[in-house]
């Protein structure tokens, strides 16, 4: 059997994937993936913010991003009862900022700490896989994904930068600093 063909999620993905954000009262008022942290976890709480830019340098304000990550101890799926590991959010319709309240993942066996990102939007025919790493973390030199990136300078496109408890990553769909997307 062959995999079913992908199609764009289109401009109205919000009503299907984040209906409460889109103004449809569904599912007892809670969108799937709205909260990653569900209790007083021992892991380090962080805010992960993203912005996505198109080839003209404009922020993509209609995208949906899902994240999937290890818990603070590096277990994937999470073994932390207060942490789901999976989140879903949409870009702010004005600024394009995407925000996740999550935890700093621990290193998954053999890999540097990272968050898997999955991006769907109008104009994206096959949703895009990429990752956010945390600039300065140990283990990046031997990480199996980062070490495949050639030229190595493009690794920088996956490095979130820290500002207090917030880590931020810009994702560029095109241009000189085009983000490394993963064929996975």
């Amino acid at each position, binding site marked *: 059997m062959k995999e079913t*063909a992908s199609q764009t999620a289109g401009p109205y993905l919000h009503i299907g994937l984040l209906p409460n954000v889109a103004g449809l009262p569904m599912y007892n008022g809670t969108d799937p993936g709205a909260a990653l942290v569900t209790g007083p976890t021992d892991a380090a709480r962080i805010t992960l913010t993203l912005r996505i830019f198109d080839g003209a340098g404009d922020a993509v304000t209609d995208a949906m991003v899902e994240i999937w990550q290890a818990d603070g101890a590096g277990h994937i799926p999470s073994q932390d009862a207060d942490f789901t590991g999976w989140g879903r959010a949409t870009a702010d319709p004005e600024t394009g900022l995407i925000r996740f309240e999550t935890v700093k993942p621990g290193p998954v066996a053999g890999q540097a700490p990272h968050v898997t990102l999955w991006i769907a939007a109008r104009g994206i025919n096959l949703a895009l896989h990429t990752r956010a790493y945390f600039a300065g973390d140990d283990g990046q030199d031997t990480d199996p994904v980062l070490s495949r990136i050639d030229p190595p300078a493009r690794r920088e496109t996956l490095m979130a930068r820290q500002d207090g408890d917030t880590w931020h990553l810009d994702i560029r769909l095109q241009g000189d600093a085009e983000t490394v997307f993963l064929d996975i």
Partner: protein
Amino acid sequence: MRRPLKPRVRGNHPPALHPDYRTTVLRSPRLAPLSMPSTLSEETGPVFGHDMLGPVDADLTRNFGNDDPIGERIIVLGHVHDETGRPVPDALIEVWQANAGGRYRHRKDGYLAPLDSGFGGCGRCMTDADGAYAFRTVRPGPYPWPNGGNDWRPAHIHFSLFGASFGQRLVTQMYFEGDPHIALCPIVQSIPDPVAIERLTARLDMEATIPMDARAYRFDIVLRGRRATPFEGQP
């Protein structure tokens, strides 16, 4: 225990850049994606329980407002398998669509067709142990969209699927057999393989049609394969 993902067959999918679908011009990565074997991060994924579903989540004719929606009542059903032919149980399927007039309940949809007080256009269900799923809705209408010309989307329902691993995640659209707009739509025709388009086209299923109630359309879905033999190994 790990189940590595089989490599994705790119020819199954539309290329990132398809200029006839104008929005892809500025939103398509231009560099080749990085080839890599799957890691635990893609071989695992969120697990959902059937207990998350409310009693009318899978009935779009009843899960919004107090009125009955206008339009042709239909059931959409099928099976979810992976590329190795195994059923995918407990797969969360989320759907969204326009109403019978071709209008989405979305703040950015300004099409002149009216909203329907009995229709939200959003629902979800999960596959059973055999990979079977079903939901009830109304047949969505076709609608025009801004793409530079006189472009109309064929009637369609958006699907989002989770398999057993995050690397199997899929978003697609289901079309209806006999719709002349399938052959005219730049989004559909971004798929290079006509057979793949055929497989996105649901067929009338008279056996599953409920007499004096709702016609049924069958849409079977295939997610990416995971290797048949789990193995212990390095990441």
